[in-house]
């Protein structure tokens, strides 16, 4: 079953002095539920723009995007936010944790918004963060007191704790050393296989591409190849 359906997606950025950039140029893509997909390509190829559009945090200039059967163009601000809350998780290159919250609180606030009760929230926080090697003492620290690898683990836990159907990861290993990056990728792969979460990565990283069950290559806003691996 298709969890992501993109048809003729176009995204044009209007720059200064009437210069426009065609970041996506008629992209068609169907991602099946449970895939571990990498979208690769050189800088400026449109990878991040494609992920942002699929995630509903950017709006296409034209074309169609649906996630889990929901046409995103039919949702307004609040409803789109609700849809993301329950269905989509984000992992960013720059971690993007909320600096005034502790690691545990960064993970918890998503569940708070979902209305999950306190007992279940605390259980999931401990389970998820422990699974990513964040101990009880580290859970009480703020992002500034954690290393880059630890922050990205917290960010991944934040994305997975809400039990989304789809996780969009924009170059999640770019700021990590290879050992940490490899370990985290293995954990995400494990989640993909155990929980059935669909992962779509935008990446340059060969480690990600190696692990992907599907590799889509973008160049100049167009898909130039789409390879499914066993």
């Amino acid at each position, binding site marked *: 079953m298709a969890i992501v359906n993109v048809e003729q997606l176009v995204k044009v950025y209007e720059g200064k002095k009437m210069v426009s950039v065609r970041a996506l140029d008629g992209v068609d893509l169907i991602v099946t539920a449970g895939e571990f997909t990498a979208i690769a390509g050189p800088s400026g190829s449109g990878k991040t723009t494609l992920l*942002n559009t699929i*995630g509903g*945090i*950017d*709006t296409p200039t034209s074309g169609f995007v649906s996630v889990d059967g929901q046409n995103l163009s039919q949702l307004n*601000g*609040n409803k789109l*936010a*609700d849809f*993301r*809350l*329950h269905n989509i*998780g*984000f992992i*960013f290159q720059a971690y*993007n*944790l*909320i*600096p005034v919250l502790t690691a545990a609180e960064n993970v918890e*606030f*998503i569940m708070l*918004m*979902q209305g999950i009760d306190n007992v279940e929230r605390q259980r999931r926080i401990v389970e998820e963060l422990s699974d990513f090697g964040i101990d009880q003492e580290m859970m009480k620290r703020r992002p500034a007191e954690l290393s880059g690898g630890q922050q990205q683990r917290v960010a991944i836990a*934040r994305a997975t704790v*809400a039990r989304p159907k789809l996780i969009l990861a924009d170059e999640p290993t770019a700021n990590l050393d290879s050992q940490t990056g490899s370990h985290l990728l293995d954990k995400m792969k494990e989640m993909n296989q155990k929980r059935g979460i669909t992962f779509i990565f935008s990446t340059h990283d060969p480690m990600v591409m190696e692990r992907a069950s599907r590799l889509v290559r973008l160049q100049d806003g167009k898909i130039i190849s789409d390879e499914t691996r066993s």
Partner: protein
Amino acid sequence: MMAFSRGLVDSMIDSIINLHAGHLQISADGYYQDPSTNLYLTRPQQEQAQTQLSMLKTKKGKTRVAHSAPIVSVQGMVSSSETSLGVMIHGVQPDQERQVTEIADRIVEGKYLNSGQNVVIGKRLADQLKVEVSDKIVLITNSLNGEINSGAFRVGGIYRVGSSDFEKSFVYLTITEVQQLAGYQDQQITAISVQLSNDKYLAEVVQELRKNLPADGGYGTASWKDQNPIGKTYEESMSMSSGIIIGITFVAVALGLLNIFLMVIYERIHEFGVMMANGVRPSKIRQMLVLEGLFLGLIGTACGTVISVAVIGHFAYHGLDLSAFSEGLSTFGVGSVIKFTLSLTDFLTVIICVQGVALLSALYPAIKASRFKVVDAINFE
């Protein structure tokens, strides 16, 4: 600022009420409009007026009319060996008059009125006439029958009230002396001065007196505002200017808060973007920021209240010494020490307005923050 402004106005009003002739006067119809006319209240009119005052004394257990005193006031001149000046001559019953005005408490040399041919004059007048206690002066006035009468009196006491105009204008004798000087019979007086327990009863008491002592009965009831239009205008203009200044202050506060909130928003745009990407509704961002504005207002209000209570309390008790401006202040009948006053209503009004300003100042930034495009907010540096 409000407390100072109110204190200034209250000082002026207190001066008018406590020095001139109480909160209101009951006189013959037409008298207060032109005191130079020889109008007076007869004995039956006085009795009717006192009856009405007794009936209005209390309402619902609260005392409204505190004291009253008869007065005979005539225009005249005072002469010494040095000079002659125009004055208003007040004939009073000393014991009753000290309940209505404060002249008896403001004697700085000699004594207040007692029996005998003594006169109490203001310090400025004494300086101009170059007289002291026990010196002789002559008072001249037109009598009721149109003749010019004069009488020699000794200065029995000199008063000081802080208002140069007042001290130069008003002289006091016993009511009997003025009646004799001006040709009034002993049952005839020009007015009954009335002191209320509180200025807030003024309008209702005046209204009831005018209803029960009508003009066609030969009565005229005038409040201190009617008798002192300058004072009334000053009170109104001070309220208006105070309101304008406070309004301008609130606008400045609002702009300052708006600037702070906008700075806060711009420092946190990235954070808002991440929150919205993770499913926080734009409306929640807006609510959160409005709540922050509300709490900021509450904290500011609490701190401001503590500081202002301390400052106002201090100056309400000790007063603010403006001796350097005493000459100018005395022109308005205001003393050189201003005691701050502020009613609970004023306090609560300011608190509510500050809260409102804080909320409104937070509203535009909150709406702006909720309308950020998520991807732009995440990428904002």
